[in-house]
């Protein structure tokens, strides 16, 4: 139900994405792994046009197909209204309370009634365990709490897919757990997710489809079993070996 074809992106002379094809089915939890600079974040941002690809098409659902050569403003808006994103730096609206952060999209872009939006937001805050923070501003929350609000904000929109851009990379180690636990819970509910992450164990556990990217290409894709446990490509093996390397020093 999400189909990406030949996504190509160049920053000045640097080709970041060299034509990527990917299909995501409804209910899929897809993780994208790969070394830094492999283009995985750029690719994810192309999916909701935060980054405009130079070539390629993006199809979401049956009807909406966007050609990167001539995207209409309305199509991009529609695409964004069918997707949601969780950011590495949370990007909560700094001038809005926790509750308003969640209701904002519902009221402004989905034109829901305020009372209905508040109801949705409150139930989601309960789900992410932050009901008592509803009237606080983001700056008074810890990183983990902010990211949980970010996830609640994305869930509230009831999108076709939620895009996660390294959602735990900016967190203190002790807060990574709370966010990953929440994401596992969401994954179990059958929400379509595309996750860029460095947490290989998490990817193995939670996803049904793993993509290994390097140098703007998809090197290998398949089930976690295939890609993470039994990779066939030398480059994938090398990448995973480095991550799993035994510590060099034991104190």
């Amino acid at each position, binding site marked *: 139900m999400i189909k990406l074809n030949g996504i190509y992106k160049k920053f000045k002379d640097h080709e970041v994405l060299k034509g990527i094809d990917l299909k995501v089915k409804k209910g899929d939890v897809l993780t994208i792994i790969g070394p830094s600079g492999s283009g995985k974040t750029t690719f994810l941002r192309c999916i*909701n*046009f*935060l980054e405009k690809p130079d070539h390629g098409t993006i199809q979401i659902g049956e009807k909406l197909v966007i050609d990167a050569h001539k995207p209409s403003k309305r199509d991009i*808006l529609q695409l*964004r*209204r069918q*997707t*949601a*994103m969780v*950011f590495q*730096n949370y*990007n*909560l*609206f*700094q*001038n*809005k309370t926790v509750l308003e952060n969640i209701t*904002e*999209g519902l009221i*402004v*872009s*989905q034109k829901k009634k305020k009372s209905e939006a508040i109801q949705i937001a409150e139930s989601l805050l309960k789900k992410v365990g932050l009901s008592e923070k509803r009237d*606080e*501003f*983001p*700056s*008074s929350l810890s990183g983990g709490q902010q990211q949980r609000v970010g996830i609640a*904000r*994305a869930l509230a*929109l009831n999108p076709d897919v939620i895009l996660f851009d390294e959602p735990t990379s900016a967190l203190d180690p002790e807060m990574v757990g709370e966010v990953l636990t929440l994401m596992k819970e969401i994954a179990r509910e059958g929400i379509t997710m595309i996750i860029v992450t460095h947490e290989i164990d998490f990817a193995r556990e939670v996803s049904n489809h793993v993509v290994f990217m390097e140098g703007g290409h998809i090197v290998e894709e398949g089930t976690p079993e295939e890609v993470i446990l039994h990779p066939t490509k030398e480059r994938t093996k090398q990448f995973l070996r480095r991550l799993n390397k035994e510590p060099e020093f034991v104190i």
Partner: protein
Amino acid sequence: MTVFNIQFAIEHFPEVLKGVPITLSIAAVSIIIGSVIGLGLALTRVYKVPFLQQLTIVYVSFIRGTPLLVQLYVFFYGVPELLDWVNKTFTTTWNADNISPMWYAFMVYSMNAAAYTTEIFRAAINSIAVGQMEACHSVGMTTWQGLRRVIFPQMFEMALPNMGNIFINLIKSTSLAFAVKVVEIMAISKMIANQGYNFLEMYSVATIIYWIICLLLELLFYYLEKNVGKHRRKTAAVAN
């Protein structure tokens, strides 16, 4: 001639006070019109709108690089000439004599405020993380909705201390408006002083009035800064 005639100063104090509403209205009107124009100009620079961006750069540089007094004169003598030319070319009958000096003041001070607020707003918007707008887009808002609901509120808060500076500077620079025959604090003081050569007395009165106005404005902006943007204060509380 006596030394400082305090009696004279006190006696004429109320008369000079009559200029205060004029001074305040020039400053208030121009900060409002100037901010609206300035916001528009700032956006042309933030979004790098071709052509308009360059125009903004030239405009800001021109206004900031020429003395206010000269700008006042150029308008005061230029606009009637321009109307003459328009009348001749299009056979209209505009009459420059009907333009009150206040209009010249409003125009020039607004243009002036616009140039300075452009820079303030531009800096304020640039200091807001790009992620804020990306988040707006990600929840399906249009750029304009994002600007209005998320970027502008943060921008105003960020710009507030600098806006206070501009406003106080405007108040003080209205003292030049007497050059285009606006009867404000400075003009009144001068006229009274002229009658008996009590220049020191009357300029002292003007000084005190300007200072009181600016003092009150400083207090107002101090209050605004404390009460706008509660979320930032909380950051500090957490950091401590």
